[in-house]
Each structure stands twice: as structure tokens, then as C-alpha cells.
């Protein structure tokens, strides 16, 4: 989950940089400022939405997978070990328990 969270944080940073670049470049007829604005804008508008959705999709997939593993764990725990053996009468012979 760390990676998608880092991606979401990076997206938020790009949006902030974009807003800052727009404000800073207002009324500055400078090629460097324009290039910076365009780069930040392209990242903020074109890349960020998809990247954010991808990050959320990765988190959702992770949670789904974790839920599945959790359920599998529960199922395995109730179908093995002493409970079943006792219920079926198939536990180890009393002689093996060292209680003689």
C-alpha cells in the first residue's frame, strides 16, 4: 500500500506545483516560465487523473486480496487440528499422550 500512497502524494504535489507555476508565470513573458507551466500542466491534467485512479485501484486490489487471504485463513483454521479429530473420533491414541 505504500507505493500507491506515495503516488497519491506525488499527484497532490504535482497539482500544487501546477497551481504555483500558473500563479508565478502570470504576466511574465518568459520562455522558461512558459515551459515550466506547460510541463506542470501536462502532468497535472493529463497524467495525474490516471495516476490517481491507478493508485486507488491498487489500494482496492490490495484490500480485496487481503480480505480473501483473511477469509482463507479462517476457513483453514476451522477444518484442521484437534477439533476435527475429536469430532471424528480420530485423535491420537491415548497411549501416545503419555498419560499412562
Amino acid at each position: 500500500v505504500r507505493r500507491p500512497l506515495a503516488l497519491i502524494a506525488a499527484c497532490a504535489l504535482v497539482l500544487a506545483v501546477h497551481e504555483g507555476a500558473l500563479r508565478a508565470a502570470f504576466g511574465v513573458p518568459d520562455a522558461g516560465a512558459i515551459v515550466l507551466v506547460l510541463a506542470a500542466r501536462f502532468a497535472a491534467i493529463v497524467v495525474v487523473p490516471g495516476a490517481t485512479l491507478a493508485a486507488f485501484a491498487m489500494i482496492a486490489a490490495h484490500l480485496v486480496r487481503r480480505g480473501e487471504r483473511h477469509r482463507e485463513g479462517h476457513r483453514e483454521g476451522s477444518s484442521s487440528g484437534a477439533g476435527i479429530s475429536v469430532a471424528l473420533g480420530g485423535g491420537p491414541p491415548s497411549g501416545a499422550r503419555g498419560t499412562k
Partner: protein
Amino acid sequence: MSSAPRSARHFVALLAFVLGLGVVPHRVCERPAEAYFEGDRAEVARLAHGVEALARASRERPRPHAPASPSEAASARYDGEWRLVTDAMCAMGFGQMTPPDPARMEPCLAGLVEPGAADFDRDAWGAAPFDGDRGHAGYLGYAGLPLALHRWLDPRSRFTEDEERFVAALERRFVASPSGQVESYPGEIYPVDEAAGLAALALHAKATHAPPSPGLVRGLESLRARGVDHATGLLYQSVPANQSVSGNPSVPGAPRGSGTALAVYFLAYADAPLAASLYRALREQLFRTVLGFGAVLEHPSGAWTSDVDSGPVVFGFGVSATGFAIGASRAQGDRDAFRALYATAHLFGAPYLAQAPGSGERRFETGGAIGNAILFAMLTSPRRPP
């Protein structure tokens, strides 16, 4: 974790990224388009404030000194043309707003008729634009159109004398030319410049309640016959001047997106059927959408070659062609194309709303004075021209 669930997770992420890429960006960018298409007064007022400030700054910049070398002459010509287009488009924008604002057109009109405004044209011809009966279609057309619009909006315009001078010079030229075509520079005919001049003549006729003049009728006939490529239906970017001077047939330049789109905007004032037919050709052959963003190819072949008219050409799409097509699509009532084209202008133009007295001041940050003035005129292009 096993590799199968991991690759499934990556696939889901990739799918989400592609979904986000295809669905969100163009929708974000086209959001303000509806307000411009519908002529939202507050939104247009913000843009008008921004353009006004930029055009004022452009006018206050000193003009270049007399060119000493060919490269200086070329640079002076472009500088002169850009100032002319900036003032002309700024004036058109104020005249096309709802309601129109003829008073705010006046500083731009003053910039168009001031003595230095025609220097670039005079340097090319070696003669003043009003002398004789040949040429100067670019200067006369781009300056004459907003002057005629001002007169139509304000019958007592203080620029009436200037307007009469420009219109009379244009009329003389369209009548006197053997082919009905008028050069912009010696040996160079640009049909789109002629379209601007013809729009000026048409608006003048409407402003003075006169029937279409002989020059207007002749110029439009000639534009239909010699300016339009009949194979594609698009406008030629240039036509060799010997056609005009001697009437001899010669090979015209290729039809292109930038000239066609701007001509649609101009001709909406002069010849609605011709404007509609050029727009249909543009829409069918040059308009494309990429991820929902609209753009117009500069060349029907999709070539990447660019020049001062096309502006930068990226993957075959022209910046000028795309910008001018915004006005063309609005004038033709094509909401879908307008929305898609505006989305592209919004993405690459980077509009920013700064705090200013009143409703604020919006500028397209990458456009400079000329880009903002052009977008102002295109975004206010009349849906039902006079």
C-alpha cells in the same frame, strides 16, 4: 505474494490509468467551453480584461527601427504583422461581445490607423497602402474589418473617415485586379487576407445600408473560383501573383488548415454559404480528436512542416489552425467541435484567473498578446453574424 495476484493488480492499475487518461483530462479542460459557446457575459468580461491589458502593453512597446538587413526586415515585418493582428483581433473581440463594447474597441482601432502601423507593409511595397489600386490586401483587410465593424455598431464612429479610406482602397483593388484577386505583398496573394478585406466590404455595406459593392461581388466570385481547392474544398494558403497580374494559369500553393479556418471566421461576415462549405471541408478532412481533445491538421497530408502562418505543428496538428477553428466552429454553431477545440486551447493555453478589480482578469499564459487577442476574437465569434 505469488506473481499471479501481483500481475493482476498491475493490470487493474494500468486499466485504471488508461480509464483516467481517456475520461478525465478532456472533460476537465472543456468545462469552461459551454460558457464561451453560450456567450456567458462574466466569463467573456474576465477574458476581455486580460486581453485589454496585454494589447495595451503591446501598443506601448516601441516599434523596431528601420531595418538595415534582410533579416531585420523580415523580423520587422513579423513584428508589424503581429501588432496589426493583435489590435485587429482585440477590436473584433470587443465588437463581438454581448453586448458589444465599441468604446473599448477604440484604442485598438487607434493602434491600427496610427502612422507606424503600416510601416511593415510600406517597407514591403515601397509605397503607402492607400496609393494606387494594387496590393496591400493584408494591412487593408485586417485593419479595415474592425473599422467596419465599429461603424456598423456605432454609426457615428469617430473612425468613420478612416473606415471610408480603408474600404475605398479595398474596393478599388478588387475592381481593378484582372483576376479579382489582390496581393498582400508584391507577388504574394493570400486568399485568407482577401477574405478579411471582403468581410470589411460586406460589413461596410451593411453599416451604410448599401447593396453589396462591385468589388465585394467580384472578390467573392474570384475567391470561390481561384482561392478554393476544388478537390478538397479547402482554401489555398497562397496563390501565385501572376494569376492576378496577368490572368495566366499557374499552380497555387497547397490548401491548408490555418488559412481555411480563419477564412471561415471572416467569411461568416461576407458570404455565409462559402464559409459553411469551407467549414464542412475543414471538419471532414482536417479535424481530429485525440483522447477527446480537438485539433486541426495544418496540411491535408498530415505533414509536420510549419511556417509563420501555421505556428508550431505537432504531430501534424497546427496551433494556428486549431485556434482559428475555435472561431470557425462557433460561427457555424458546431458545439461539439467547439468544445473539443476549446479543451485543447485550455490545456496548452493555460488560462489563469488573476485577482483584479471587478470580476478578475483571465489570460492564456502561453499565448502572449497576440494569442490572447486571437482567442478573444475566436471565443466571441458571432454565432449569427450581422
